[in-house]
């Protein structure tokens, strides 16, 4: 636990911004600061609040009212436009994305089966 906390302390503000942004994008509804804090479970409420405010000032989040409480949601307009462009660029040809460092490449059918088997074995243990 002590090592984990030390690592958290070293994490730069930019990294925390990215993690909080990811939480809000992955959520189906706007989240309150307390819900964001609960999702990340190892950040102080004040830290979460500060970063949410900063992301809102940058125009990446918007403050809304959800269930009668203040909450935050990602701003989608600019991202939607960029997503459409990106999809067109990537789908223009199979090789276009080759020189982008993608996290995972497409799986073959066999690889997919092996991975699922691996996952099942891991769960049973």
């Amino acid at each position, binding site marked *: 636990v002590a090592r984990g906390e030390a*690592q958290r302390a070293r994490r730069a503000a930019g990294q925390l911004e*990215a993690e909080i942004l*990811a939480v809000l994008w*992955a959520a189906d509804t706007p989240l309150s600061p307390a819900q964001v804090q609960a999702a990340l479970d190892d950040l102080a409420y004040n830290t979460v609040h500060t970063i949410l405010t900063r992301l809102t000032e940058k125009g990446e989040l918007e403050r809304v009212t959800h269930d009668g409480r203040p909450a935050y949601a990602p701003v989608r307009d600019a*991202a939607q436009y960029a997503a459409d462009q990106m999809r067109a660029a990537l789908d223009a040809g199979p090789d276009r994305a080759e020189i*982008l460092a993608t*996290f995972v490449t497409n799986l*073959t059918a066999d690889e997919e089966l092996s991975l699922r088997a691996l*996952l099942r074995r891991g769960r049973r243990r």
Partner: protein
Amino acid sequence: MTVAVYLPIFACAVLAVGSGPLATRLAPRGGAWALTAAAVCTALSGLWALWLLVASLVDDLPWLGGVPRMSLPVNDALSAGAAVVLGWCLVRIAAELRRQVRLRSDVRGLLALPGGELVVLPDRHARAFAVPGRPGRIVVTDTMLRALSVAERRVLLAHERAHLRAGHPMALALASVAVSANPLLRPVQEAVNFLCERDADEQAGAEVGDRTLVAAALTTAALATASSSIGTSSGGSGGSGSSGSGSDDSGESVRGLATHALPDFHRHGVLDRVAAMRAPCRVGRRIGLVPVILVGAAAVAASIDATGDFTALLVRFLRG
């Protein structure tokens, strides 16, 4: 010149054969850059060797008629063949460079978006990649984020951050150009891609302090990628790309056949990365870099040697 001029091609072949086994044995960071450098060196040497063969046609130039022929160990048919191959290579390189420039302009919009290092795109495909720039950005689709747990997202971010910090996009671009100059180098490019991913995986493992968590994140992300691309195309939104993965039933069976026909195609894929992160941390051997560097250096040395020979012959020829 008799031998040296052909050595670069031989070096390419050696590198291509050796890169497969080396990919899983080399230290990821050093291996990626050593293989990239060797690929670029052998590709350039190969082009230069072709040019020397073409240049040996100089004694056939009509306005030099009447002078005695150069005593080159190369016949004219071979030189003509080399001219065709060289032209074909140059066209391929130009096409590859154009492709990379176009890709850069396509992603410029992503770099210009407001915000910090992370760009999230609403998209039904689960995708994640790093876009190089100043500063580079990490681009992830919301579908990918939803598929991952909080801890796995941390792995994803650390992984892409490592790509940008280590300059991997440059290695990928250089390897891609080297392949366009010499298709023999394709396996080397695949090894470079694999080692860059392995390096980023290890960096992410160090950052989150848990290598098995990286293996779990890779598994989840890979399966999310597979199911999201199949789901989209069965939805029939024509032109959903991702190169043939996911299609109707007949397409699936065709893909299955192709997989069996080419068992090694994805040998250095996600499965190997997952296996590596589940195994205890093994520092790849630096000694393995030596043959890679030697092959690259040999190709360069051979082309310098061949150039010296050719120049000497040319000088003797021009003096008559």
